[in-house]
């Protein structure tokens, strides 16, 4: 009986020491792990709106980190989910660091109506970020954070001003339409081409024109579209169909009334 009691006593003491040593070294290691999310960036790529969240983990602790799983859900201001994506890193051994970008792609085909809203109106995206990992292969750890990402519309306040006509000859005249917008996007400039097709009230094509765009971030555009139109078809009002082909996005037709 005495040996059993002694064995139990030693087992208890050894286990207490192990647990205390493991707890102290774990806390020390956890304090030596640096991790964080960088400032999210947004850009358009191949028909996708890509939101890129930089992630860095520097493990200078005593234990390995494993099964790192980062998940980011993007929601619009109405809390409707636009996209969810995950990044998995199987292991971050002690003394090493990782620096990666977690990309969330939002298909523009799925949200064309919303895309128009994002192109013309400022909004705020909510990012629901979570990071899970296993500490020392035995302690699951989860960090989650909600972030907001302001979205500046690249074609904010896009409008057609008062349309005027310049006389050319007895069959054609030049339709002059002042166009203005502000590029509120902090992420990209609007550079490329804008094509406009002018239609009369009967839906007949009067003419079209193309003009170049080069509008840096946080700056405005004021220009005019000059289109040669057939006098016989002019009704004084109608629709302009705008097509944008820029380095950041391609979209059209965006229909705006004139006159």
């Amino acid at each position, binding site marked *: 009986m005495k040996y059993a009691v002694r064995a139990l006593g030693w087992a208890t003491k050894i286990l207490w020491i192990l*647990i205390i040593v493991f707890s102290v070294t774990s806390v020390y290691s956890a304090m030596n792990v640096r991790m964080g999310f960088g400032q999210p960036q947004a850009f358009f790529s191949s028909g996708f709106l890509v939101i890129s969240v930089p992630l860095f983990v520097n493990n200078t602790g005593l234990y390995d980190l494993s099964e790192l799983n980062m998940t980011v859900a993007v929601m619009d201001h109405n809390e409707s989910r636009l996209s969810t994506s995950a990044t998995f890193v199987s292991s971050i051994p002690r003394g090493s660091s990782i620096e990666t970008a977690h990309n969330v792609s939002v298909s523009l085909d799925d949200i064309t109506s919303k895309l128009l809203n994002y192109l013309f109106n400022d909004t705020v995206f909510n990012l629901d970020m979570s990071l899970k990992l296993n500490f020392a292969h035995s302690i699951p750890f*989860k960090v989650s954070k909600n972030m907001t990402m302001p979205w500046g519309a690249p074609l904010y306040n896009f409008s057609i001003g008062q349309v005027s006509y310049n006389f050319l000859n007895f069959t054609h005249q030049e339709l002059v339409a002042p166009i203005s917008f502000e590029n509120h996007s902090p992420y990209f400039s609007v550079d490329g081409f804008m094509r406009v097709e002018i239609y009369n009230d009967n839906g007949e094509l009067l003419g079209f024109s193309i003009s170049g765009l080069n509008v840096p971030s946080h700056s405005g555009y004021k220009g005019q579209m000059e289109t040669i139109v057939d006098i016989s078809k002019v009704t004084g009002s109608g629709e302009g169909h705008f097509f944008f082909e820029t380095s950041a996005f391609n979209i059209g037709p965006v229909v705006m009334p004139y006159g």
Partner: protein
Amino acid sequence: MVEKGQTKTFARKFVPRIIKAALLVIVTYLPLYFLSALIEPFQSFFPWYAPATSLFAAVFMIFLVVGVFTSGTIYQYVFGVARTLVTMIFFIYVLNGGIVALAVPIQGASVNIMVDLTVILAMIVLICLLGIGKNVVQAIDFVSAKGETKES
């Protein structure tokens, strides 16, 4: 003469126990004190920790002192089991059943942290069960030894 002898016996019996109890209380209190001092800056994140620790320390020390004073009787083991049970319940309560969740404000934003300490809690519970087992075995040994002494 008899009174003097009784006082001597009392002193010989209890003074070592008082010293032992005082030493054990100090040895037990010191780690708790240092742990509390260590986590004091983070105490706002663990509001349940301080009162639970004070209560645990008080109950644990009472059982410890009573255990020392009842040494040589079966009650020593009863209080030993009670002490281990208190330790087990304290850790289950403080570690919130193994899942510790905190909301930490960092740069104006709230960061939610969740740590699953089930493995550590399971080890602590296992150690406590071993401690209870040890006390029970010691109690059985004590009773059987007493029975043998009576028989002889």
